[in-house]
């Protein structure tokens, strides 16, 4: 049971976490990352399409900002969006300096492809493996900077004393031992929670851990009702077909062979923002113009050459997981849970309301995505706000003395692990998880209404009670996956309840949150952020104003 001190502990080693760690280390801090899977396994690796930056001569950060604000359905904080769009080009160049190689245009410049909701081709990419390329570069830099990696350690608890962060308690999966990591500051960068849904593009490890930790530390989660459903996901497995497929010119067809997006977004068609396309698909499917619960992504007209060079990964995925070669046949796709616009409420520097606690990436909510994120903006968010969080941690650590790690923290964690392992005769966590997935998918999906949401809410409340009595089969200390699954499920049930509460209360339709009983956006009442707090095991809602600087809200049409 180690007690180790580092100036800064980063939880999660995806793009945001590693970028933050590198920035903090560059300032001379002793930094360690704690991650339940090895850094290169993090789900940033699966990002396919690309990363946005206004690099083109006739493009501008203002245009990028406008597209992002509009994409967010005006719920994004414009001061934060401005920071992101202004700093995007230099962060891209910084990535190349680190070693990243983006695909090239014929002239040898960084190539850019069109993406949904963007008025300009501004998405930089590495074929259809952009996240993979970036994540491996970030891992290289992590090693270069000598940052310590606690890999396959799962954080159970943020340790808070006298209103400040003092570190974390983590479970070493290999041995089942609990360790104390003492620090001045902690950065949460644990990514999304896609696994609360049944059909999701997210990894099996995307269980929203850090959001749960923050809730337990008394911090609010913001805008959790905004869940992005990606329009092109393989059925059954939920595996992603990049938006780049449409960016390169792919069509969406219904059972009659019609390019139905002409009806829903006459000017940009398939390249409308994701919420618009997903709703259109869902409508086609529900109105009987689907193909076995899907629509068709048709790439055939792009030709074998382009598909093989620009979209080779998704071609492989379609063949392996759907048995379809996009060169010869259209690929059946449907919407699936993809990204969390909401997360731990932070400011532009990643600071939460708790001194010493920072957050970045998908687990944080700055908010730059508002009610709907544009494709290519999530990778951008990770590197811009990861870097900024790292820099602000450096400032914080310089001004702060390390204070002692409280003795009780470890004892509490040991006790809770022992209790779980001791309990017997209870229900399986997998049964509970399955019912949670079904409830979220069926009652809190693309189209919502008060009846469905209430059903979902009641179901999750019931599951939270059952969870308290769940028992494990695996009692061993070494690599106990079931124990890890138990903790993940607890976090996901909390998160599900936050999503449902926010969604039930928000009586309007905005971005990804679409209420059939309140189909209009209502700026007067709802142009504000939702905050959910967990207090004594119960959840409480609050609201906060949106920062509006350059662009006044207007009707959103594509």
């Amino acid at each position: 049971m180690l007690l180790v001190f580092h100036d800064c502990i980063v939880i999660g080693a995806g793009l945001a976490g590693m970028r933050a760690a590198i920035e903090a280390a560059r300032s001379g801090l002793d930094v360690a990352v704690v991650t339940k899977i090895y850094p290169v396994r993090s789900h940033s690796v699966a990002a396919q399409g690309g990363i946005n930056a206004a690099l083109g001569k006739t493009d501008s950060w203002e245009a990028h900002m406008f597209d992002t604000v509009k994409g967010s359905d005006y719920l994004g904080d414009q001061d934060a969006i401005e920071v992101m769009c202004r700093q995007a080009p230099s962060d891209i160049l910084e990535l190349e300096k680190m070693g990243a190689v983006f695909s090239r245009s014929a002239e040898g410049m960084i190539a850019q492809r069109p993406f949904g909701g963007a008025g300009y081709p501004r998405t930089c990419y590495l074929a259809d493996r952009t996240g993979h390329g970036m994540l491996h570069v970030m891992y290289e830099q992590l090693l270069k900077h000598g940052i310590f990696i606690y890999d396959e350690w799962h954080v159970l608890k943020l340790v808070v004393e006298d209103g400040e962060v003092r570190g974390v308690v983590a479970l070493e999966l290999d041995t089942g031992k609990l360790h104390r990591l003492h620090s001045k500051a902690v950065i949460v960068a644990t990514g999304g929670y896609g696994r609360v849904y049944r059909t999701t593009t997210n990894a099996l490890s995307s269980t929203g851990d850090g959001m749960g930790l923050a809730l337990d530390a008394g911090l609010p989660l913001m805008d959790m009702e905004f869940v992005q459903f990606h329009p092109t996901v393989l059925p059954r497995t939920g595996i992603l077909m990049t938006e780049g497929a449409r960016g390169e010119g792919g069509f969406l067809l219904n059972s009659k062979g019609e390019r139905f997006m002409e009806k829903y977004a006459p000017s940009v068609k398939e390249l409308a923002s994701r919420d618009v396309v997903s709703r259109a698909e869902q409508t086609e499917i529900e109105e009987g113009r689907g193909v076995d619960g899907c629509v068709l992504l048709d790439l055939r007209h792009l030709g074998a050459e382009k598909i093989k060079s620009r979209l080779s990964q998704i071609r492989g995925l379609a063949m392996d997981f759907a048995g379809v070669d996009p060169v010869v046949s259209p690929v059946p796709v449907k919407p699936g849970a993809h990204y969390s616009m909401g997360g731990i409420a932070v400011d532009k520097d990643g600071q939460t309301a708790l001194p010493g606690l920072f957050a970045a990436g998908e687990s944080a909510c700055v908010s730059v995505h508002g009610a709907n994120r544009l494709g290519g903006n999530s990778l951008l968010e990770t590197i811009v706000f990861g870097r900024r969080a790292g820099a602000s941690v450096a400032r914080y650590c310089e001004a702060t003395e390390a204070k002692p790690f409280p003795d009780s923290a470890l004892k509490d964690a040991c006790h809770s692990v022992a209790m779980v392992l001791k309990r017997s005769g209870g229900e399986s966590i997998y049964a509970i998880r399955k019912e949670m997935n079904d409830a979220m998918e069926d009652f809190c999906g693309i189209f919502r209404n008060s009846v469905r949401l209430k059903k979902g809410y009641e179901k999750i409340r019931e599951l939270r009670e059952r969870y308290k009595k769940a028992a494990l089969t695996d009692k061993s200390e070494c690599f106990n996956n079931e124990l890890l699954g138990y903790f993940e499920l607890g976090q996901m049930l909390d998160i599900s309840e936050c999503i449902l509460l926010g969604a039930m209360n928000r009586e309007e339709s905005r971005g990804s949150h679409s209420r059939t009983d309140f189909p209009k956006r209502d700026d007067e009442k709802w142009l504000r952020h939702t905050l959910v707090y967990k207090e004594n095991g119960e959840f409480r809602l609050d609201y906060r104003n949106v920062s509006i600087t350059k662009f006044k809200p207007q009707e959103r049409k594509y």
Partner: protein
Amino acid sequence: MKIEFRIKRYNPDDGGSPEPYLQAYMVDVTEGMTVLEALLKISEEQDPTLAFRKSCRSAICGSCAMTVNGTARLTCNLQVLPEVEKMGSMTIEPLHNHRPVKDLVVDMTPFWNKIEKISPYLMPSSTSGSNAVTAEAEELIDQSQRCVMCGVCNAECSSLEIDERYAAPAALAKAWRFVGDVRDGSVVKRLERLSEEHGMWDCVRCVRCTQYCPKGVSPLKQIERLRSEAMKAGILDNHGAKHVEAMAGSVEKFGRLDEAAMTFKTLGFLKSLGKIPLGIRMELHGKMPHPYIVAQIEAIEEVREIYKEAGKKAGLKEKKKE
């Protein structure tokens, strides 16, 4: 369709000094189901104690490599039914060449250490850093950039099976990622280190890494590229490079391989003496090759012409690079 999965189990927490054993599970497999999906089904419905790594389940995170029916595979993009149809069974074990931790989980620490040892990050010099990455330059490192570090190649590596100190294909492919990058400023230093013992010259060219890599990295191809670059950089004072030089010389001179001369040129006089006892036995069986009496092929001048022309082209390319 019911399929029997035979899975290697091992838990160090079992009392005494537990030995690995095979456990059978019957799984209802549907069309398209992957091996990883079946493992998840087993752990969720039959036996939650079964340990294995997994994450993205779409062949990009590299977590779920295991030995399936004898060879290392990513389990997430391997479908059960075609595999069973081909191999007749479904046996899943942990990756070879790695120490099992529990069930199908192996200790990857030596794998990461090997990666770390090649200084896996760009080291631009004041001049190299601003070299433009053209589409052509990108193409050169494209395969090596596809690596997901799943460990399949190392698990299948014949040399690593014998010599745990061998750098092994994953790290060597990663090394090419930087040696082949026009922006790197430490190429010669990297190649010198890779030319040391247990380095790139210890590859036996068994082609297992390239055959089984699930991402088309072709580690062997990258090893060949490293070797070529090292020789072009003049790093010749090692057995591997000398062996290749001797071969290239022999083909240019005779059009044939001159085994005896190659041994002599590679090892030098003193070390070649050590081969004498075996040499005497081979001589008795008429197997001892005699150096420098190899017959020339017909039209050897064509071969020499090709050497000359290829040498000219290589020289031009080098110049262009500078």
